[in-house]
């Protein structure tokens, strides 16, 4: 996992609520057995018509670019497919900003070093307005300080992230490394309980 510290970039706006993972990566593209290459089909059916011609969609609009995907509330709802996080990251985004994320997507993003940045609905609305007026507007995500800055307006908003996950992201650590380090505690737990589960 690549470390994440701070990022200053333009953003791609997707001001729609409840964007589900079936839109992010449709099920028919889940047949691959590796983690790579999903970016090609990110938002496939919003980007292309059935003849594979580009549609009027923000990812096809050269006016918008950047490493931040700025999305409406409840981003990533629906299926648990981690392929959604892989696709966003493979496309080139490093952070997704929204007023809240679906739980499983949020966890999947964090496990891949794709930073989910939760800001207030007001700060999100302001960011969308800023991009609308100036697509070249820049935003800074500072993980160390846990701040999101709208460089155009100067508005600085904090965002929450737990300390453990923050450390993982800054250093590029996986949960699995940590869990493997807990082997003794896990064995002790297994030995010390009455188990009716199996």
């Amino acid at each position, binding site marked *: 996992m690549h470390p994440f510290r701070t990022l200053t970039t333009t953003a791609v706006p997707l001001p729609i609520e*409840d964007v*589900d993972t*079936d839109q992010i990566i449709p099920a028919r593209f889940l047949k691959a057995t*590796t983690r790579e290459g999903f970016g090609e089909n990110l938002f496939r*059916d919003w980007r292309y018509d059935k003849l594979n011609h580009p549609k009027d969609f923000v990812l096809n609009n050269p006016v918008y670019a950047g490493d931040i995907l700025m999305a409406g509330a409840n981003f990533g709802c629906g299926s648990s497919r981690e392929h959604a996080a892989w696709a966003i990251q493979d496309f080139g985004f490093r952070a997704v900003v929204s007023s809240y994320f679906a739980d499983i997507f949020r966890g999947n993003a964090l496990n891949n070093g794709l930073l989910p940045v939760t800001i207030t609905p007001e700060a999100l609305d302001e960011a969308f307005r800023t991009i609308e007026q100036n697509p070249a507007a820049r935003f800074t995500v500072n993980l160390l300080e846990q701040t999101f800055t709208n460089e155009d307006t100067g508005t600085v908003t904090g965002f929450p992230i737990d300390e453990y996950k923050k450390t993982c992201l800054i250093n590029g650590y996986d949960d699995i490394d940590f869990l493997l380090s807990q082997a003794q505690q*896990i064995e002790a*737990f297994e030995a010390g309980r009455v188990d009716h589960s199996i």
Partner: protein
Amino acid sequence: MPTLFDKVWDAHVVTEVPGGNQVLYIDRHLIHEVTSPQAFNGLRQRGIRLARPDRIVATADHNVPTKEQHKPIAEPLSRKQVEMLTTNCAEFGVELYGLGHPYQGIVHVIGPELGITRPGITMVCGDSHTSTHGAFGAIAFGIGTSQVEQVMATQCVLMSKPKKMRINVEGELQPGVTAKDLILYVIAQLGTGGGTGHFVEYAGSAVCALSMEGRMTVCNMSIEMGARGGLIAPDQTTFDYIEGREFAPRGADWEAAVAHWRTLPTDVDAVFDTEYTYRAEDIPPMITYGTNPGMGMGVTDLIPMASDLHGEASMHKAMNYMDLHIGQQMEGMPIDYVFIGSCTNSRIEDLRLAGALVQGKQIAPGITGIVVPGSQQVAKQAIAEGLDKVFETAGFEFRGAGCSACLGMNEDKVPAGRYCVSTSNRNFEGRQGPGARTILASPLTAAAAAIAGRIVDVRNEYAVLA
């Protein structure tokens, strides 16, 4: 004063991690072909084995054909993915109920029917509808592939404890109203993100009165309001369902397990972070009009205006996709497809309900009707009861087990622009195929729609069945 959720969660905490996370022990791990290959690859790259292969069960469901299942899978990528599951399970020593095995089926159907799912356990699967298993009073939730790998490697996940919500449904469901309508009603009240960050306990007399299969339908769709999972207190209905199943405890083990399970229900003075109460009598047969499961309404209602739950932009996009409009009545609207299946509604009771309605009737001209049993065992039971013939005589196709047209990963898709009344769980854009328009409903409403060729209120047209 702990809740059911507290009791199960707290009993599985291995250690606390500074910063609010906990290492949670996972009792049972279900895997399938779509979200496991990258996890097995990860283990290989790290050079590690499974921590507890005896706690994992695998099946092939998402990406399998539902026709001619005895033949090799025609589509090369699907075949490769299913073959990879077989190879991985053999290499790592995982019990696999693959295509052709009498236990094969949708992962959330086979867990309960085999007695793998039990009260008081923690269970995960790389699939969001793992919430289904909460019907037994288990903590069951969907995880991503990185977490699948973590559980494979350590039998644990790292998580912060979710908040607690209780949803009470009191009273008696009206004739023609099913568990599916109950949960679609709740989701329509709370919206597709209303349960985010929470585990939901369903309670109240209407919930307690549900069969285990009805309870599974309710818990299955917890994720559709954004909840991590849903659960229902285990009771005699639960124990009766489990007893005698293939892997259920027996003899003294059974007695000890039941004694433990009886201690699990929420204490009377327990407090939830959020609580809602609804009247069962207020719940009509439900349908969805939009492109997320929160966009639901009573079958006779008019499509509502944008609201706090569904903003202008979302409603506009949804109406455009569905080719419907605000204020429109959907009752009476012609439809093209009917899909009876999915981890929400593919169990024997669902097939019996739909079968009773179509018995002796014919599906309307021009309607394509597909019935996909949730598992080989459900299919076997349905055939034993003659339900396959009931459906086929009525003009439905009766298929082999799998996820099928719920997510359209295999060739079971609804064509672009066509309306499908579906007993599945998601009406997202393109879910059942690019451009497909999904209307979620109960098996009863779906069967009635197939016969009528249009959306009907089962309370009027089939009152005789009530």
